[in-house]
């Protein structure tokens, strides 16, 4: 199984299963329609930075609820971003609920066509 970017050993964690069915998640994007750049992990965006949890740094934050994504756009670092819905399927990779119930970390598979899975873009 090949991931979108190289992951450290033991990542994704064993309790982050490959998706069993389709699920809709929301990712904050800079441009509409979104580009590949909107789905780069913290590590991919900052190759020189130190992260204490490399596995988390190579995952993507997404929300299960649109309203939580919208709430996040009130923060200064996320201001101007917009939620866009991505339909995830078993072919999309591993997903784990992390932090608040709606917040998940997604480790996409290399073969998954993210931009082709954009389901809707918030107005």
């Amino acid at each position: 199984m090949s991931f979108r970017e190289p992951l450290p050993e033991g990542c994704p964690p064993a309790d982050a299963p490959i998706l069993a069915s389709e699920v809709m998640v929301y990712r904050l994007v800079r441009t509409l329609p979104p580009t590949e750049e909107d789905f780069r992990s913290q590590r991919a965006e900052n190759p020189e930075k130190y992260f204490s949890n490399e596995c988390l740094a190579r995952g993507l934050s997404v929300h299960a609820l649109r309203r939580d994504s919208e709430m996040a756009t009130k923060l200064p670092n996320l201001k101007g971003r917009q939620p866009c819905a991505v339909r995830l399927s078993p072919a999309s990779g591993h997903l784990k609920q992390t932090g608040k119930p709606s917040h998940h970390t997604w480790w996409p598979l290399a073969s998954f066509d993210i931009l082709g899975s954009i389901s809707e873009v918030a107005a």
Partner: protein
Amino acid sequence: MNTVRHHATLFYYDGPQVFEGRDAIGGHYVGLLVDSGASANRYLLAGVAPERLREFRLGSLDLRALLMSNPDSPWFLANGDADLAQPLKLESQSSPWADCPYLPDAGFVLHDAPASSASLQEARARNNLVLELAVEPPEAATEHRIRARTLAGLLTHTQTLLKHAYGAALRELSIDTRKSLDRTDAHLMDVIIPAAPGSFRVVLEAAKGPDMLGQNELARALTIVDELFASTSSPSDTVTRVKNRRGHLAAAYVRLLKFLAVNRSGLRYSWAEPSFAVERHHALADKETQPIIDALSGIANLGSESLQLTGELDKVDRQNGSWRLLTADGAEAGKTKENGPSLEGLKIGSSYRFTCEEDIQEHESSGREVRTLYLTAHEPL
């Protein structure tokens, strides 16, 4: 120059976006990521009153109002790493809050619905996992009272159950995941409200705070404890659940039940992490306790665990059936049971693999656990 250390992450999205900080003298700060640079991040920080911070954690105050709760107070910027592992050196800003270009929009709250229960409210207010226990011994029937010994026993048995539940949860994880966790003291709880109104209620919180994502290690243990209390109205279902958790956890569960039976009390508990939408809770009625104990009493070796030790034989007493092995983790001593393997032929100074049954009994007066290793097989290395 004043510095602030990250204390807890309050909102995470591709890294900590909102967090709590503490300065060297315990002053409370709230911090926000304002710019994610290629080598360092830029953060906005402001000192806040603990009570206002508590309101923000509860979801009843929005972030902008929290930051501007004292419009004349200074605000700061600081450079820091992405995980906030190093202290942030505060750079005081002279302009008024109104000119601060990094303020969040109005309306950012941590929870958009009020807490539906007391334990969830406490978890949010403390930004930590909270467990609430309630017992109803006879002395609590007419007033808010409990025997000191009963309270001590309740806390000891609960803490022991959590310790073994956490051990069981860790065994389900891969070695890599286990290695990545900070497990030190992760199973410990502190009493924070020793006697809350109601039937005798005690409130505890995790001794160790949550991780960067706001999740607490102790939740693993409580999730397993929930399994054991999930169907207490059906002794046979509970027996199945406890048998699936054979070993020290099962033994600790049985000891807690026996303790409740002796003290003629049921048990109710609820727990929550700050991020929960609703608390999780279970109850065991006084009358349900004894049938479960009776059903579990017939199961052989329910509380024993098997383990293997390798090392050099340091001491052997064939007459008393006792031995001591020097393993890589230190000396381990044990016994053989009456029908156990013979110690004849074992040579001091030689290396062996000992297969043992580990038994834990509780010291009656102190409640301390006493561990005994019984040799079941040995082979030379």
